[in-house]
């Protein structure tokens, strides 16, 4: 039974831009299967994981919505016309007005198109894309690591990206910090970060936290987010963010770089933390900063992309998170190695008998004040 199917414009990249496609089938489900066979990936656009047509997609048989008939079991016959119509959110046809869509709103055709390379993958699909849109991710530092993390989150349509940063753009940042450009030297990093991210994707809401994160504000900022990403440049902030994320019950996606080396891991509350990996910070001055020792610009992209990937997996609930594993990257040998990390039962934060039950003074803990480092000397 040849049935003519109207393909909406956001789905037409699958059909080589054909507006109408004719396939065989005895029921709506048959027709959709036939479309998927001819245009692999089509089913992912019209079905959710339970193989139901999601609420944001209407399918019309002639002029009747199939929910008012027998759903996908509705029989079709010769000469029938089927139309697949994704709903539009709040009248924002095109969706390019920069306003965030309501949490449960359907994806707009513009969003379906923009994120199609993600949506087409069964591990993402329209539901996954909406999870990304609803997600709130906090990135500590809008510098070397925070840059690629924030860019990839914005490109992927993560709805809310918080940035903690108080620094201004220095000429020496531009060797690696992709959020900032030459014209931004001297401007607050948050200003150029917002511009870059919203230029990439106007749907993303960028929340600015224009302060150093401290023991006084961390428990106000961190609980507002679902996932925390660490791109801090000093040990005091690393221990602070570790403790605050654990106390707030948030997953922390950690990364660090120096010279040609990178490290990345994910701490989930209860599966170990930064204190389990490194119980004490090194004495001030022993481990140099990137400003003192240098860092390969591109390694920030490697580690930042890995952190963004872990955030993505976490939001979508797919794959194996980088939990209890420390990924080591050596750019010179281009070797990636994985070491085991365990929750330490004697950990003062997440061990069996914790002694750190609230945030402490991390400058004292680390023996130095990170804020005393002159801006121009920062890595």
């Amino acid at each position: 039974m040849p049935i003519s199917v109207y393909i909406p414009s956001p789905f037409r990249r699958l059909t080589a831009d054909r507006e109408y496609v004719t396939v065989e089938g005895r029921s709506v489900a048959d027709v959709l299967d036939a479309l998927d066979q001819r245009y692999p990936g089509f089913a992912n656009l019209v079905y959710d994981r339970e193989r139901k047509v999601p609420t944001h997609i209407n399918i019309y048989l002639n002029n009747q919505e199939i929910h008012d008939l027998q759903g996908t079991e509705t029989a079709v016959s010769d000469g029938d016309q089927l139309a697949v119509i994704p709903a539009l959110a709040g009248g924002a046809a095109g969706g390019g007005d920069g306003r965030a869509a309501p949490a449960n709103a359907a994806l707009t055709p513009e969003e379906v198109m923009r994120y199609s390379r993600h949506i087409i993958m069964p591990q993402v699909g329209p539901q996954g894309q909406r999870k990304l849109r609803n997600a709130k991710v906090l990135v500590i530092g809008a510098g070397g690591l925070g840059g690629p993390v924030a860019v990839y989150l914005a490109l992927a349509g993560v709805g809310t990206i918080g940035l903690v940063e108080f620094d201004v753009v220095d000429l020496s940042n531009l060797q690696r910090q992709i959020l900032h450009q030459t014209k931004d030297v001297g401007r607050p990093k948050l200003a150029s970060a917002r511009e870059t991210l919203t230029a990439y994707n106007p749907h993303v809401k960028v929340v600015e936290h224009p302060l150093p994160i401290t023991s006084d504000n961390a428990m106000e900022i961190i609980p507002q987010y679902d996932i925390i990403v660490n791109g801090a440049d000093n040990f005091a902030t690393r221990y602070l963010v570790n403790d605050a994320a654990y106390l707030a019950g948030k997953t922390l996606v950690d990364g660090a770089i120096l010279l040609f080396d990178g490290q990345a891991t994910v701490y989930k509350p209860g599966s170990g933390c930064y204190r389990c990996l490194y119980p004490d910070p090194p004495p001030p001055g022993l481990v140099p900063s990137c400003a003192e020792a240098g860092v390969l610009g591109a390694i920030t992209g490697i580690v930042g992309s890995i952190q963004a990937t872990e955030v993505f997996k976490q939001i979508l609930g797919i794959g194996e998170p980088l939990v209890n594993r420390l990924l080591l990257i050596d750019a010179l040998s281009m070797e990636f190695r994985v070491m085991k990390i365990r929750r330490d039962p004697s950990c003062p934060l997440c061990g069996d008998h914790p002694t750190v039950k609230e945030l402490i003074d991390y400058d004292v803990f680390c023996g130095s004040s990170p804020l005393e480092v002159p801006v121009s000397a920062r890595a």
Partner: protein
Amino acid sequence: MSVRVQVTSVIQKVVNGQRELDVDGSTVGELITNIDARYPGFAEQLMDGRGELHRFVNIYLNDEDVRYLNGKETPLSDGDTVSILPALAGGAR
């Protein structure tokens, strides 16, 4: 007992810029002593004055942290890889 030792970042300075060394040693502690004999100053990167391993430097035997094995007494076998990893803080601000 020949063991491959991989050192990252700042520790490489102490071993003449190498990132891998082949060293003899029957335990982790002996390995450190033997490297220190060749590269004086190596041991103090890893241990305090009382010979305790620093808590901001991790030593892995293959992929396992030696703190969860037998610390400096952890025995080594031919072909093992020992990795020495100081904490890194850089986010490249």
